[in-house]
């Protein structure tokens, strides 16, 4: 066969090689989507009515009222910030040994499995579910929220840091080992310098997440600004709710911008 004919006949290879399987997969997916859409019941008259109700609900948020319940808002905010700072600090500190244990290139199999299991548990359960458990254990208030956030920080930091540790340049660690360094010296000289920027970046990012979560956790009684928001909604004081939401948005933006700045600076 000459090159010109071969060039005309050439097509990029398809993702799924067998033609029948390819069409079966595409056709099956399409059929399922059509059938699934058919089972949805949409009450259009109710939806039209709801649009107006939603509009009224949103309208009640204006104007935002910062003044009437300012003391409560301030208290909630401080509680949230305290919760964020303490949970981030504890979570990050505790996540380091977990991450080391969850790195296949450092830890022996039993420790690896234990730490990976811990991370899996922490990541499987949504913060709200863990918060409900901790509220049941420790009562209403910021302690439960703090513990919840610290626990999920361990899962988050542990997993991502362990992945970074598993991705290090092996040769650098090998060179440190070859000098006769001890295991802790290997961590401090061969591994820590390689993962430090990511560690700082992740910690800043987690701080930002913890603040956002602390605003949600109040809804299940775990303290913080979320608690204040929840009670204002319960009392139909939507102006106060609007004020709280605006403050949360502002703080989240500041946190996000700052953590982004920190992450760029250390890369």
């Amino acid at each position: 066969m000459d090159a010109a004919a071969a060039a005309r006949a050439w097509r990029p290879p398809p993702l799924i090689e067998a033609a029948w399987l390819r069409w079966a997969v595409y056709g099956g997916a399409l059929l399922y989507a059509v059938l699934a859409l058919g089972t949805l019941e949409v009450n259009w008259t109710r939806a039209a009515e709801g649009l107006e109700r939603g509009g009224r609900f949103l309208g009640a948020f204006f104007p935002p009222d910062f003044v009437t319940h300012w003391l409560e808002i301030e208290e909630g905010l401080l509680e949230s910030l305290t919760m964020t700072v303490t949970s981030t600090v504890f979570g990050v500190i505790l996540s380091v040994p977990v991450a080391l244990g969850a790195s296949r290139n450092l830890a022996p199999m039993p420790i690896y499995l234990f730490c990976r299991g811990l991370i899996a548990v922490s990541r499987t359960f949504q913060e709200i579910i863990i918060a409900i458990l901790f509220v049941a254990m420790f009562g209403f208030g910021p302690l439960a929220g703090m513990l919840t956030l610290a626990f999920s920080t361990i899962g988050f930091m542990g997993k991502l840091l362990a992945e970074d540790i598993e991705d290090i340049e092996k040769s650098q660690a090998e060179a440190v080992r070859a000098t006769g360094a001890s295991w802790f010296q290997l961590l401090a000289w061969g591994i820590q310098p390689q993962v430090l920027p990511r560690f700082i970046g992740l910690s800043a990012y987690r701080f930002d997440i913890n603040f956002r979560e602390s605003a949600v956790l109040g809804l299940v009684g775990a303290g913080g600004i979320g608690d204040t928001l929840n009670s204002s909604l319960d009392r139909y004081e939507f102006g106060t709710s609007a004020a709280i939401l605006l403050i949360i948005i502002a703080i989240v933006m500041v946190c996000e911008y700052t953590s982004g700045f920190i992450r760029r600076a250390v890369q």
Partner: protein
Amino acid sequence: MLVIEGLTKRYATGDLALDDVSLTVPKGQVMALIGPSGAGKSTLIRCVNRLVEPTAGTIRLGETVLTALGDRALRRARRRMGMIFQEYALVERLSVMENVLSGRLGYVGFWRSWFRRFPLADIEEAFRLLARVGLDHMVDKRADALSGGQRQRVGIVRALMQDPELLLVDEPTASLDPKTSRQIMRLIIELAKERGLAAIINIHDVALAQQFAERIVGLHAGRIVFDGPASDLTPEVLTTIYGEEDWSATIRKAEDDDEDEPPAVEAARIAAAD
């Protein structure tokens, strides 16, 4: 001084990297280990300092049976073997001085090393050696800001900081240009001679091996197939090590290189080294 007997390494994957290798390197001898990729050169030197655990065989360094050591004793023994790596293997985010001082990790405790409180004598030796390789003006530069040749010189200094008896050198020139390669090889040989160190140098550049090493060992598929002085390296020998190829140019090149280096380059090298 280094005695290897019946060294065998089979990886978990089932690959037999080394097959009953026996080798003796006397004190002060510079030996080049040549062979095709996958012949087991890297595995061999990593078995010596046990970055790779041998499957069978014994390795002795002086009186110490390296293959029988427990963790703590192994770390003490590793101080006596300086290693130089292919891609330099410097800790990139640490400074030149920190990388050099990491050669002393086997001698200082954890907290001293954590706070970088090394004995003054170590720091002094670091400055002396950095000056010797022409890098004393870059002490606080980060390692990743250096060029390839400079990095490898830091790698050499790190290995020498251990005050070793033996140098294990893994493809020191594989990522360097031809001129820098020669300078680095010359530096390693000079320093080894000055300090009376034995050295095993893995190298795939036959011409360089011939030019710089007094003894050449050829490895093929995990077995030693040649062991002799550089002058005995004939096309037939290269064929047994690497397989069939036209070797005439390879062997001649080694002799040409030395003469071809212009005086200016030579002078610059000396200036850099001093």
